[in-house]
């Protein structure tokens, strides 16, 4: 069963969005989806880059009214 984990970093600034995303990734299992919600512009650029570095799958980035939502999938084990 895959879980959907929500990371709320609204109002948080560097490095917190990145740090909280990493914490959520560590607690997740293969197949889980993580949704990070924030409004710090720099983190909107940073987190997708970290997703690539960590070998995870970027499902999408949505933005509305200054708030962004980044969806990440933990790859299934081969």
């Amino acid at each position, binding site marked *: 069963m895959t879980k959907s984990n929500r990371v709320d970093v609204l*109002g*948080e*600034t*560097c*490095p*917190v969005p*990145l*740090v909280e*995303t*990493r*914490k959520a990734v*560590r607690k997740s299992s293969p197949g889980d989806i993580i949704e990070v919600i924030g409004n710090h512009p720099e983190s909107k650029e940073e987190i997708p880059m*970290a997703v690539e*570095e*960590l*070998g995870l799958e970027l499902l999408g980035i949505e933005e509305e009214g200054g708030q962004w939502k980044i969806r990440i999938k933990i790859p299934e084990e081969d």
Partner: protein
Amino acid sequence: MAEGDKATLIVHSGDFDKVYSALIIGTGALSMGMEVSMYFTFWGLERLKKNELDKGPLSRMNFLGLGKWMMKKKLKKSNVREMDKLLEDFNELGGKILACDMTMEIMGVKKEDLREEVITDYCAVGTYIKEAKESDVTLFI
């Protein structure tokens, strides 16, 4: 992700802004999937004493504490995470804090003076060099 990417930081300075930078870089590196160790030596070790983490002076424009006070106000306004919480994050993400044995001897610092619960190990320069040799990123702060 390249397994075994390591970052090693020497925290030699005890200045408020420099220790802050070290913690931000350290947690940043951990967040990017790296293995991170921070080696606290000389003035940096002072910051590992109980209740001392954010007590260092500003590295420049301290103005007898006025500059630091103004900097703290700016940090609060930008909602920057507090140093103690960053150190907690650092430990939670598996970062290692190493305290320099020699500095403790020179400055007469005992283990009981330090926050033993945040310190991963006590060691000497050889251990730092071993970590640094295996690291892709080495920084002197």
